[in-house]
């Protein structure tokens, strides 16, 4: 009996080799050790990169590029401290929205790094490799471009981190703007070579034209006007994109794969993949959204913006509104309408794509590049193309400075609530002038100071790495 018992114990003990018994990995998740092998793996990882990139444009970008400016203000009484800091343009390192933006952008960069590095070490077909790399490099470049515009500098990473030890060894310090721009231009020129001129029917994907548009914007922002002119000219000569005849179709459900789009971030409803813009832009009241639902009025158009539209501008009703009807009674309440799905069953589940780059932007950038390279006359043609669609009369301008102002005004209206305003003001050096006047006009003693032109590095990052605070 004794022997029997012992043998039971021993057999249980050695039934399986100890270490094998302890080696468990989750069957429902993918371990890095068995991924990044097939084409499909890389296609999936690329979708992951797109998804990560889309996250940047769900919320924070509108605080950063609209709420800070004369375009928008908070219209609810229960706003958070972070929101008030934006509204009053008094950002602190603890601002959770700035933190969210920083994290989302840098996460996208890190994920792109992993994809690119794994791709390089893979034995995928060269064509596929080139396409995936081209799209990924665009996303990385766009992300760095956001970092440098918002924070004035950025950590630069190109490689995958595979363990805490890798991270401890890495240089994650902030690099000056010049180095970041170098990185961006490198990526975009590389992407330009990697991507072939395809039909670009799927606007959810980055194509050659998308890369050129961004490169144009980067050059323009970096005061390389001649370079900008060259690349934007190439883009217009590709003859692939055009303006939608009806401005409002750009922002309503069904706005996929439009001629005017160079890149759309995609949303659909019914799968938790809708946009939440109606929560941001529409008031905390019924009478606008379907199903008696309410938004929360976090970012709503300023009176200043409402009054900036010229009489008869068709763009106004497609962009902003000031009347809602709770319980059928008319009430004044300003709200934004772009990309807002008024018909969605759930305001957090709107089925409108967010068009990140559209041809109108290309045309106005081209006009800007022409004007800055002393070709004001040619610039006017492109400006008037935009005005024509809005049912506005052509302008007659010959003065370069007046042209600058006209383009700025046109851009403000054309791209209101599309996440451009702060960046346009920064590029044209008008940030303090415009926003301080806006606050003064409202009788508020808030201002944008010199050191507020770049956003504070988030507290969380400084706590982790005190060097970033210096």
């Amino acid at each position, binding site marked *: *009996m*004794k022997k029997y*018992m012992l043998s*039971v*114990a021993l057999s*249980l*003990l050695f039934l399986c080799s100890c*270490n094998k*018994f*302890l080696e*468990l990995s989750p*069957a*429902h*998740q993918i371990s*890095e050790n068995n991924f990044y092998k097939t084409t499909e793996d890389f296609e999936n*990882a690329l*979708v*992951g*990169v*797109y*998804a990560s990139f889309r996250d940047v444009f769900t919320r924070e970008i509108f605080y950063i590029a609209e709420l800070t400016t004369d375009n928008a203000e908070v219209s609810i009484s229960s706003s958070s*401290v972070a929101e*008030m800091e934006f509204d009053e343009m008094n950002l*602190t*390192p603890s601002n959770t929205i700035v933190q969210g933006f*920083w994290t989302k952008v840098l996460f996208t*960069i890190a*994920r792109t*790094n992993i994809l690119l590095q794994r791709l390089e070490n893979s034995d995928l077909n060269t064509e596929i490799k080139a396409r995936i790399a081209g799209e990924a490099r665009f996303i990385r470049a766009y992300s760095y471009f956001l970092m440098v515009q918002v924070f004035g500098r950025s*950590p630069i*990473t190109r490689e995958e981190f*595979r*363990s*805490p030890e890798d*991270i401890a060894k890495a240089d994650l310090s902030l690099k000056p703007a010049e180095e970041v721009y170098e990185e961006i231009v490198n990526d975009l020129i590389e992407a330009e070579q990697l991507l072939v001129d395809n039909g670009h029917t*799927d606007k*959810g994907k980055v194509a050659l034209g998308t890369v050129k548009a961004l490169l144009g914007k980067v050059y323009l922002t970096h005061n390389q006007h001649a370079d900008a002119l060259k690349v934007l000219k190439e883009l217009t000569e590709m003859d692939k994109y055009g303006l939608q005849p009806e401005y409002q179709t750009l922002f309503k459900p069904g706005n*996929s*794969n439009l001629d005017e789009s160079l890149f759309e971030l*995609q949303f*659909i409803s019914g*799968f938790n*993949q809708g946009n939440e813009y109606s929560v941001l832009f529409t008031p905390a*009241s*019924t009478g606008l959204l379907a*199903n*008696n*639902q*309410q*938004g*929360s009025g976090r970012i709503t158009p300023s009176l200043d913006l409402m009054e900036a539209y010229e009489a008869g501008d068709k763009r106004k009703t497609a962009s902003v509104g000031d009347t809602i009807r*709770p319980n059928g009674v008319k009430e004044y309440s300003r709200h934004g309408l772009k990309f807002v799905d008024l018909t969605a*069953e*759930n305001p957090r589940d709107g089925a409108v794509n967010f068009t990140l780059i559209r041809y109108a932007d290309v045309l106005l950038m081209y006009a800007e590049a022409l004007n800055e390279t002393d070709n004001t006359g040619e610039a006017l043609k492109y400006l008037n193309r935009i005005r024509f669609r809005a049912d506005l009369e052509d302008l007659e301008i010959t003065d370069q400075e007046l042209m600058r102002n006209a383009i700025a005004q046109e851009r403000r209206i054309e791209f209101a609530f599309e996440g451009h305003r702060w960046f346009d003001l920064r590029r044209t050096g008008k940030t303090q002038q415009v926003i301080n006047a806006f606050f003064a006009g409202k009788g508020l*003693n808030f201002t944008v100071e010199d050191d507020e032109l770049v956003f504070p590095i988030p*507290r969380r990052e400084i*706590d*982790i*790495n*005190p060097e970033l605070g210096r």
Partner: protein
Amino acid sequence: MSKNYSHLNLFSYFVLIVFLSGFTANAQVRTVTGKVMDAVSAVPLSGVTVNVIGKRQGTSTNSAGEYSVQAKADDLLTFNSVGYKAGQVRVGDVSVYNISLIAAAESLDSVVVIGYGSQRKRDITGSVTSLSPDDLQPGPAASFDQMMQGKVAGAQITQTSGAPGGNVNIVIRGINSITGGNQPLYVIDGYAIGSGGGGSDVSNFNGDTYSSAGMARNTVSKINPLSSINPADIASIEVLKDASATAIYGSRGANGVIIITTKKGRKGDPVVHIEAAGGFQTVANKLEMMSAREFAEFHAEGRDNAWVYAGGNAEDPNDVRTGGTRVRPEFRDLQSLHTNIDWQDQIFRNAPLQNYQLSTAGGGESVDYMVSLGYYNQQGIIKRSDFNKYNIRSNIDVKLSDRLSLGVSLAGSYTHGDFARAEGHLGTRGLIAAALANSPAMPIYQADGSYSSELLDPLGVPVENPYLILEEFSDKRNSVNIFSNNYLQYDILDGLSIKTSIGVNYITNATRLWKSSQIGEWGAKTSPATAGAHNSALLNWLNENTINYTARFGADHKFDAVAGFTAQKESLNMLQAGAMDFPTDLIPFLAGGNVNAGTNYITEWAMLSWLGRINYSFKNKWLLTGTVRKDGSSRFGVNNRWGTFPSASLGYRLSDEAFMKALSFVDELKIRASYGASGNNLIGNYAHIGLLGVVPYVGNGQPLLGVTPQTLANENLTWERSLQTNLGLDLTMFNNRINLTVDAYRNMKKDLLLNSLLPAATGFGSVTQNIGELENKGLEIALNTQNITGSFFQWNTNFNISFNRNKVLALNSSSARILSSAYQATEVGQPISSFFLLEAVGVFKNWDEVRTSALQHPNTQPGDIRFRDANGDGKITDDDKTYVGAPWPKYTFGFNNQLTYKNLSLGISLTGSYGQKMYFQGAEIIMNSAGVQNQLALVNDRWKSEAEPGNGLVPRAIRNDYARGIGVNSRYLFEASFVRIRNVNLAYKLPAAKLFNTSIPAIDLFADVSNVYTFTDYPGYDPEGSSTGDNIAASGIDYFSYPLPRTFTLGLRMRIR
């Protein structure tokens, strides 16, 4: 303490074993008979074990207390009955011995269950608290953990939710981990349970990700998993506190170990226990809210002030004002208000409670058995909440031969309950929040008979009618728990035995959630119906193989050793689904809609261990224990998969020294010292593996899934190592009338498991790493005294008090600050999860104060909250956040009294806790002074003008959140110290009697009130309420947790043989 009905069977079971392995003797055998009775009442005692020392035979007394045994003249007879001091008699020439046994409060010879064995209490060298059923709170309870409150020095036991079957947290010797779990390991009849595989992280039961759009969400409530153990089945509970005691559980012992031993049968006629109790519960503490008129005044004031702030005039009519500043017209005329409702009365009720228990135990020559049935039913004090529990257990031990025995233990429980949407956020229709925030001036019904609601009324309180919440949500949960553990033991030689056991625990949990189309969430009055289902099945198996050796060398040396090997594995299979697009509200199941969300996964852990322990005693005076366990776990990286946990302890029984004999009043004096290591592995199953996850996206208008890296690999990941030092003293004096135990300890936690934050540029938010150090040190005192021991009147008290200090010694960097919530942070030099907030220091009484203070906001005015400029830079920003307290008590205590007069006894238990803070998150709504939701009546004392500055603490009413007035700050942080009359119990013992030739068995009648009264300054429902459930590292936040009821019960216990 009277011990007539509930027997600590296990004690005698072990006593039996001790006596069975004995000596031999020789002489003439004859029959000795007699009767055994209680020394005080002279009631015959049945079931008393009568043994002849050195012989294998033994017997027990029959129902008349009579026995008959074969013995020789020089034999020693022993009489053992649980709850009595052992009796002894030398046979000599007499053949009839009538024996009187004296009831013992606690016998020094009692045996305490420790990991992988048991020990005489007098030989214990570690820190162990042992509880018998009589030590637990009387009265019915859903789970045993509630009954331990205030009984164990060093254990802080908190019922965080009063929901039927709600959560209870046990923290032993202070919070031990930031990222790893803090739950102790639960061991039931030798089987370590818990889905965590380490401490028993039994929290697999919550539903967060099941529903389509996350709408039918109710994450707070869950069935307390420990309620699957029937409290009536428990024979003893041992709480192991220091490394000497817990190291035998290795990588799972660092949070302490709670060993539960269930009742077993023992030789003798069957004994039937019947217990029936019923009662009702009421809400113990209703909050005092504003009346309708007070509310109307407040509402108008808040909106007028906001309009004035925006540049208007308080006299302006509504039509010139902006939306949020308009005043409900009827609120301008207080006399016109006739409705005045306290909505709490609409959701609370008096709720019944029932408990029935039936068990039988007994045994013959070779088989002992204990079979029990239980039913427990508790309606909640919040409407539509209830909890039902069915338990069944059989413990059977069989002696196959002189040397071979086996045991089978089979237990099952089925629990089901309805969880009202009680707790939870106002916006997601939390019922308590809605009842408190709702306007007291709003009638329940509209003119057409439907429920009224001001949700969409721009002048109203944006809250749904609580009745609608009660009707349109449902959350039904059930759980089946099947537990079987079986052993085979072979005694190779006297003193040497081997044992192997195999056990299985299978647990299923199912949740069905429903939200009808008649109710919405946040600002939406209605939204499409959703249903969710959440099912899990957990299979855990354990095989243990141990060898035991006991030996004695000469008179002075005693050895006792155990060694073993164990293997355990667990697999949890989770299935969740959600549905939308319901054409009708008639089918509140997935089947009625379009199932469009769901997930299914399996998560596993496995563990292999070697263990060993030696107890050595020299002259019964010096006691030495050495323990080691080597654990291998699937949860850790290949570089650190195996760990060793040794401990050693020494006890010295001074009372056995000759020089102590002079102090004859000292019965026993022992000093103890221990040092050792134990571990904590509660970090989830796959933290060391670099994982990628699926992320949803859209491709050409269709949903599309992508893959993205989620966690960083860390092959160095391993357990937290806790190095524990314990010094203790056990003193018994005056013939067992005074029992004192004192322990002082210091627990150093090394290799703290930490979600250390990573720079965003790495692409990962954090990685679990072994970085950091933590210290808990403290003192525990337990004092049991028999104050009066008259033959008619007895008074016993039990007092225990525990002090603990928690401090973080190191994190990954000196500047690291780990935020556990919007309110709490952990930093070097502070206790874990200390409150880190802007410190509110009252309100500005006048303009002078505003002008001379640090700049808070350009528009700060008198009546606004004033903050302390902690960094002294002249302005108030987030950089002024400072540490303003911690959720951990400085000390906790229990004080229990038992008074007995003849057959009547009265028990009074108090518990208390001092020095902890609680962030009353609900106060962000009911104390925010915003002029929107209804407020606690204390907001009537707000600042109104310089002439009427109120109490200086409550800011003026204003509907605006400039200057951080409404946001998070220390204004909502309160002292949560309390003293609670936990329980008052009156019992009357009806002796067995004969009536018209019918035997009436002994019956105990009892009346019990629990949660009688709480003395506290905390303004919420309960100072122990917490909304973070079993996430102990984030405790101290109360968002309207389900209030603890006051319970009245009447019952009887009967013992029939």
